């Protein structure tokens, strides 16, 4: 190859071709910056849409886009709340409170919940409406708390998982023969299945009184003192039940705590679920043939949770219309609990919230 003018020109052209691939962008016309959000609250029960109930409802907005942007304000007598000069971002809206309802002959408290995402396309509208769900329509035995994320630690410890059930109905419910399952992506795909002792549907040996909590521990062990020297984790010897797989010879079995037994043939693993993403089902036990999943008619409650807001919803919507736990961190000691004990709209996105520490056998405030 001669180092002549031709080669120099070719090299120079190739160089210009390389740099010619680079384009500059035009600076956008609008600056990022502040925005106003004006929300009109609206109850799902028409009779509540009066000044009496609209006034002073606490409304919280927060964003996952940036740090430390969390605002709380109250509605005026028209049910309107304004957030002005807040950073431009996508905001989640949350109402979790209770109102005192006048039933004529008596007064009673009613939990109210609203949840939504403020759509930035609404910027042209002056007011956005947020629907408030009153009461929580579905009563019964509920999966009330899911503690799976693990305590703060740096050695990937998450074995202090537990699940809390709550009877939100006015009648006694029975755990006899019920099954508690970890699912894959649908109620048709069982990953782990454990069963309470007793006869399904008709057994009355293991009652749950109205308003009672029941704690199901992965293992009824005192992790707090035995592993973390009292500095982290929890004492699960207070659990009402523990999951035991008799084929897992290393599985801890507390003799003082009754067991849910694994009923999957040949399964050697103990009950263990995803730290910040999974699906749990509580079913009445009328269908224990897990090969084809769980019969939808037998499902008592189901919850899907995932820490990522971009998670693709898996579980059938007639079991759970959403998923809870967005933003939950692994190894954080955080727990996922219903906003009000037993509160169930059939949508875990609305029903659950992340709490900073587990509440074994009681409801957070």
């Amino acid at each position: 190859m001669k180092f002549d003018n031709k080669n120099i020109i070719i090299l120079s052209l190739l160089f210009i071709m390389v740099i010619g691939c680079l384009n500059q962008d035009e600076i956008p016309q609008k600056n990022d910056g502040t925005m106003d959000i004006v929300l009109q609250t609206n109850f799902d029960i028409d009779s509540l849409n009066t000044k009496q109930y609209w006034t002073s409802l606490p409304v919280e907005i927060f964003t996952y886009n940036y740090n430390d942007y969390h605002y709380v304000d109250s509605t005026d007598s028209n049910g309107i709340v304004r957030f002005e000069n807040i950073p431009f971002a996508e905001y989640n809206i949350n109402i979790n409170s209770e109102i005192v309802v006048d039933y004529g002959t008596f007064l009673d408290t009613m939990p109210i919940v609203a949840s939504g995402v403020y759509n930035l396309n609404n910027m042209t509208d002056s007011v956005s409406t947020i629907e408030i769900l009153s009461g929580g329509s579905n009563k019964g035995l509920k999966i009330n708390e899911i503690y799976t994320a693990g305590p703060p630690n740096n050695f990937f410890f998450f074995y202090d998982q537990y699940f809390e059930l709550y009877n939100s109905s006015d009648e006694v419910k029975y755990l006899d023969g019920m099954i508690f399952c970890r699912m894959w992506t649908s109620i048709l795909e069982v990953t782990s299945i454990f069963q309470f002792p007793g006869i399904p549907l008709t057994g009355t040996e293991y009652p749950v009184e109205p308003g009672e909590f029941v704690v199901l521990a992965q293992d009824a062990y005192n992790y707090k003192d035995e592993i973390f020297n009292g500095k982290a984790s929890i004492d699960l010897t207070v659990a009402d039940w523990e999951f035991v797989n008799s084929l897992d010879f290393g599985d801890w079995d507390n003799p003082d705590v009754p067991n849910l037994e694994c009923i999957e043939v040949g399964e050697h693993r103990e009950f263990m679920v995803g730290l910040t993403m999974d699906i749990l089902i509580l079913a009445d036990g009328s269908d224990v043939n897990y090969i084809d999943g769980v019969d939808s008619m037998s499902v008592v409650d189901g919850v899907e949770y995932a820490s990522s807001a971009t998670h693709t919803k898996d579980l059938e919507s007639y079991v759970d219309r959403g998923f809870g736990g967005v933003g939950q961190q692994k190894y954080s000691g955080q727990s996922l609990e219903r906003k009000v004990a037993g509160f169930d709209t059939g949508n875990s996105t609305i029903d659950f919230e992340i709490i900073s520490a587990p509440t074994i056998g009681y409801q957070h405030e």
Partner: protein
Amino acid sequence: MIIKYNERKMQPIKKKTIAIIILVLFSFPGLFAFENNFFTDDSKYDIFNSQVSLYSITNNPAFFKITFNENITKYSLTGSKKNNFIYREYSPKQEQNNNLEIITSKNLNSNSTIASVITYNQDIKFDMKHSLEKDFYSHYFSFSDTTTGDTKFAGPQLQFLFNHSLNDKIYLGIKGNYGIEQGLKDIYTQCETIARNFDVSIGGGFQSTDKSTVIGGFIRYSDRQDSYEAVKEYMDALVRTYVGYHIYRPEYSRSSNHKTDSQKGINYSLQFYKKIKNLKIILNGNYGYTTNNIETGSTSKPTNVAYWQREGNNYSSDFIYDFGDGKSSIRIGYDYKKTDDWAKNPEYNTVVIENEEIKNRINFGLFMTPNMLMKFSINGNIENVNQNYKEHINMFEYTSDHINFGTDLYFQMQLTDVLSLDINGGYGKFKPHFTWEIDSFNEINIGTGIERYFRFGFVKIEGNYTKYSPSDGEKNINEYQISLSLRK
């Protein structure tokens, strides 16, 4: 055109040279840099000449041969330690740098010169809080977690320059720079950083027959990519991406968080040199821009969190008057530098950060060789800096209009036939970046070196001490540096 060189003699050299050029240019398309300054500031070759030169001002590879024409090789080993008794929130408390460098320049024949700088650099940042970046504050979209740990960065860098004159008047030059650097934080999230760079300049120049006039220009293309991987975060190690210096995006919880930083840039530069009797005039103009795409998230589903563009120009004029048979000179120069930054949120197409910085600087210097045994120089500069920085998301604005100045002194003396001593010192006052929250720093540095001639070359040992003291406060930053070199 008549090409005046011995073609038969040049043949093997050409093959090697062109092979390297092609390797650098095309074997690494889209390669990257960890030391791509926006405007090139290449003073490595100034070991050949302690006076300000055409090449050191313009950085046009075509002018290397005009400025330096000695064969030289220098090996140096440098170690430095910096104690930051005051530091910014996300800066290290202590820094250590070890550097091995080999600088060579060889005249292949009367037409061609080749030069290279091979460097292996190791940087250790001790007790660095939160930052997963080498320098948290030099980037608007820094990656961080919530741990404090030590991070070690290390890697080689190769700079190559080839300068060729087609005839007595026309000069061509190419300069390439390729480097790779790896960093690892010693605590979870054990963030691993890989930075790669590619930087190439092609320049041309014309020199008049009487060598009194030189006109030239070059185009520079730079390409840089930084990649970060922070793994297995837990409560105490939340991964975040800052937008400016006050607000951050929490990254979603996942087994590993990634960030990639892809920067490309172009500079165009024109130069003019004129010698009128003892007066040299050097005019230099430079325009450039870089584009930078920042993505975070997982490798399979990255999110484009920001686009950052920097545009700027740099004009300088230097007047150098030689006296004392050209062994002494006096210099005065003016330097105008303007950089404009803006960054947008690609999702909403809105501007999130804007920064404008204008520097007007006057330089002056005196270089003297009173006799064969002594060299002496004194330099000074004073600059006006005007800055306007805005973060739009949380409405932060910083404006500043301030003066910095600096002076330095250099003295070299031949003690014996084979032994020489040099001493240098400097003093300056400057206002640091606003994130320091300090009005100004006083900078003092002092250094000395002793060089001895042996049959195999010149061996030099140097020591340097620098101290930065804030105008208000007793604590300071100090840096010790020791260097051993062999020059042939």
